[in-house]
């Protein structure tokens, strides 16, 4: 395995992540939850470390690492928390951190939409259902995860595969460079409409660009997504159980 031999640091960090996740998720006897979460988070950060970190200045590096730590702590704590309500709140932490990363990737609309949809709607709905369904504390099936050791090992194998593939990948591959150059050459792709004399070239991340991409390139998909939302609404109303008021 040339990858494993060449990247000893990554392999060590992956091993640390396995140990940390196992400490965080294993049975009660060996449980050291906070220590496990900390070890897993910093090991996973070490997995990211060999990659080229984005950003041009110290501020962007700082933002990236803060958001990464938030996402990793949120994710690891979510899957290892005994209380499902705490798990949902940790998921909110991970979501907000991921939204920060969206912002750094020139997607401000998506960051706002994700905060609104996830933190505003999905988390609240999940907490609502959880509090309806689980009114008597932490139950036994939340304390004991199902086969954590094998699951962690298999996840480590999957992660090694992905990370090895990403080590071979370079964002500045010739194809990507050619793509970027072509798009920059396009500049003003269409004739600017009358009235807007100083039409700026479409900039990645501007609402203008995203809207053009959505409603010009992917119009049929937008219509299909709307239909999907309608069908999901009808299906959720049909599937939701009906009971007398006050009971679930």
């Amino acid at each position, binding site marked *: 395995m040339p990858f494993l031999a060449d990247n000893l640091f990554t392999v060590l960090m992956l091993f640390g992540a396995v140990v940390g996740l196992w400490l965080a998720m294993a049975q009660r006897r060996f449980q050291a939850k906070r220590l496990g979460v900390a070890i897993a988070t910093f090991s996973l950060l070490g997995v990211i470390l060999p990659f080229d970190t984005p950003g041009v200045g110290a501020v962007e590096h700082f933002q990236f690492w803060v958001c990464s730590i938030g996402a990793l702590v949120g994710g690891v704590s979510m899957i290892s928390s005994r209380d499902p309500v705490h798990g949902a709140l940790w998921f909110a932490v991970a979501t907000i951190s991921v939204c920060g990363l969206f912002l750094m990737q020139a997607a401000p609309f998506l960051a706002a939409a994700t905060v609104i*949809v996830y933190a505003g709607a999905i988390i609240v709905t999940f907490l609502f259902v959880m509090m309806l369904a689980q009114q008597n504390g932490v139950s036994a099936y939340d304390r004991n*995860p199902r086969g954590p050791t094998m699951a962690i090992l298999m996840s480590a194998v999957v992660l090694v595969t992905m990370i090895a593939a990403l080590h071979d990948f370079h964002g500045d591959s010739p194809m990507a460079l050619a793509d970027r150059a072509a798009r920059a050459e396009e500049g003003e792709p269409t004739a600017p409409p009358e009235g807007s004399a100083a039409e700026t070239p479409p900039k990645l991340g501007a609402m203008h660009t995203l809207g053009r991409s959505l409603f010009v390139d992917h119009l049929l998909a937008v219509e299909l997504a709307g239909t999907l939302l309608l069908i999901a609404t009808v299906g959720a109303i049909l599937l939701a159980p009906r009971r007398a008021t006050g009971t679930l």
Partner: protein
Amino acid sequence: MNHSHDAYLALGAILFVIGGLGFVTRRNLILMLLCTELMLHGVSLTLLAFGHIHGSSSGQAFTVFVLTVAACEAGIGLALVLSLYQRAKSLDVSLWSSLRDPGIDLPEEEFEELASSDDEAYQEFPALTTAGVRPTIDADAPLGGQTWPDEQDYGRPESFVYGPPGKSDSTQKTDY
């Protein structure tokens, strides 16, 4: 746009794997759904990074669709979770591990039978799943007690008993 985005790809992969790990190990139905949402976050990060690498905003458009599908999935999934909770009075997913098509025995019983039969010539052929059979529905299920109008149209065998005995001729309808 001249900085690299490989770290975003790595973080997306890690978030995806963490979500998958949680989906496999957690036994709470709601937390399993939340873990799929974490996997979707990883996918969104990867889509955005690739879109940024190629200077195209299709990645952002795809992420909008991921968001849409996540909202639909949460709605339908929570309705299903509530429906399952109403039957089992628990959010434990292990209670549903024996959920299967009608006409099929539990696999453990088959293995025990195979182990106990010392006859060399004894051979058990695998049984195909009987497709298209209406599952037995409790009376308090969302569609419980509803009659199915087109029962004769599919040419099902007359001897097959649909549903639990005594329930097959119940014509009470839920009032919605």
